[in-house]
């Protein structure tokens, strides 16, 4: 049986790949050439805000093609952990490597280039309120120097796929919470990134939509994308475990633990 989501996802990836920036392409090829290495690596990392230490001695390697869930109570530091993974925060101690580069050694431009290869679904979505939804989805392409994308087939397909075609010209403040989350996911995918970090991507959508988004992420993973999803939603994790070999990590007691069979 032909899986329609798989077909669409593959096409999305192919067209997005064709659009990608030369340098990003070169980077990707070199990354592929070093298979077996980690895309993102945390080595005995600790992080604290002024309020106190969130976690310490955290080590993790995101191998290419791996699928991780990150869970833990609210306020345990899931978002903080993801921010460390895409260079928005520098760890208080320990080393974070993104594509084999130590975040502390990376210039601001290096960070920007790395972010083009890491698709992030932010918990609070983060759109530009003065641009239409379509323009917001195309923003990663725009800022990396691609031409105007108004009629881009790839963009259109992504929008069909997250069910937002009818809202293409809406401004972000007019969108519902679920629409914003779907849009955030579409924006994270537009550059066809190697790694996808999603912070509560299904927090505001109904069960059916959350299953659809999950299926998409699983399909992307089958095509070789590395995925990490932070979520409270244990139902989502259980649903995923039937389809994909996912590791479930939990932040608990300031440590990162592998969650057991209770899931």
């Amino acid at each position, binding site marked *: 049986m032909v899986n329609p989501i798989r077909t669409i996802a593959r096409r999305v990836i192919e067209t997005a790949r064709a659009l990608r920036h030369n340098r990003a392409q070169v980077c990707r090829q070199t990354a592929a050439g070093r298979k077996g290495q980690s895309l993102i690596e945390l080595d005995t990392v600790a992080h604290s805000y002024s309020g106190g230490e969130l976690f310490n001695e955290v080590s993790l390697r995101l191998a290419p093609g791996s699928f991780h869930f990150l869970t833990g109570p609210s306020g345990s530091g899931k978002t903080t952990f993801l921010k460390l993974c895409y260079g928005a925060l520098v760890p208080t101690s320990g080393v974070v490597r993104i594509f084999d580069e130590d975040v502390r050694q990376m210039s601001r431009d290096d960070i920007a280039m790395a972010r083009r290869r890491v698709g992030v679904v932010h918990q609070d979505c983060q759109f530009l309120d003065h641009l239409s939804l379509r323009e917001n989805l195309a923003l990663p392409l725009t*800022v990396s120097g691609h031409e105007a994308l108004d009629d881009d087939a790839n963009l259109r397909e992504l929008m069909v796929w997250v069910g937002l075609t009818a809202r293409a010209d809406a401004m972000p403040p007019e969108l519902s919470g679920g629409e914003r989350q779907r849009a955030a996911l579409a924006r994270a995918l537009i550059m066809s990134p190697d790694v996808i970090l999603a912070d509560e991507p299904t927090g505001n959508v109904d069960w059916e939509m959350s299953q659809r988004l999950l299926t998409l992420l699983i399909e992307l993973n089958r095509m070789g994308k590395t995925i990490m999803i932070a979520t409270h939603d244990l139902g989502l994790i259980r649903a995923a475990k039937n389809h994909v070999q996912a590791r479930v990590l939990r932040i608990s007691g300031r440590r990162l633990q592998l969650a057991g069979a209770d899931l």
Partner: protein
Amino acid sequence: MSALRSVIDFAIGDAQAEKAVPPTGFTVRLTVFSAAAMAFLVVFALALSLAAGRLADRWGDELARSATVRISAPVEQMAAQTEAALNVLSTTEGVENARALSIDEQRDLLAPWFGSELPLDALPLPQMIEVIETAQGFDGDGLRLRLSGEVPGAVLDNHASWRVPLVSAAGSLRMLGWISIILIALATGAMITLAANAALAANAQVIAVMRLVGARDSYIAQAFMRRFTLRALTGAAVGTVLGGVALLFLPSASEEGGFLTGLGLQGGHWLLLLLIPILAAAVAFLATRLAARNTLRSLT
């Protein structure tokens, strides 16, 4: 050539980048207005400097190289003393040429005061000798000493006593004009820095989102720099045109009016006005770049 290319690219800009940063509203309008006002002031400071410069050069040049020896003597000694003075002058280093004025020339000099019908022959007028210096000039005190020894009735007037303060006043005026221009440029830079900082602060959220999706600092800074540079260019162009028109309506230079009527621009100096908008644009470019760099550095 490639520099020109990049200037053109910068001016045309990236429509998408321009769109990503929302309109910055009043800060932009303030920039246009202040650039216009500043350019208007620069036009006058420039005209003042150039006019003062012209004056200083003219007084310096015309007068620096001429001096007068005046001989007052009894009529029967006049010819002999004149002869002696000319002799002294011809052997003085730094004197290019010395010449006794004829009676007609002396009459012409006095005509403005006494009319041209003056019977000069009947008056015990002093004899004037016009001295032209070489470029190096002569030693006034030395010459005065020699003259007092050999020509008792001779008085040397090398114009320095009244020329020097005038030339130095014109020089100060010129300096003041240039200082004003520099101060106006700095004030423009400060003003645009404030406006750019306000615009950047108002757009902190937008900048953060752009960074999150992989925008480089230069890309974000460019959008702001382009906006402020073009507004400063436009404002300064308007201000310069208005200042230039105002200069045109000043009375033109004339002998009688002296300094005040010579304030306009002359000839090729009009072309200098073209530099004012370019300078304003350059100041805006640098000020915005600095402001953007500082703001961006504080974001992840």
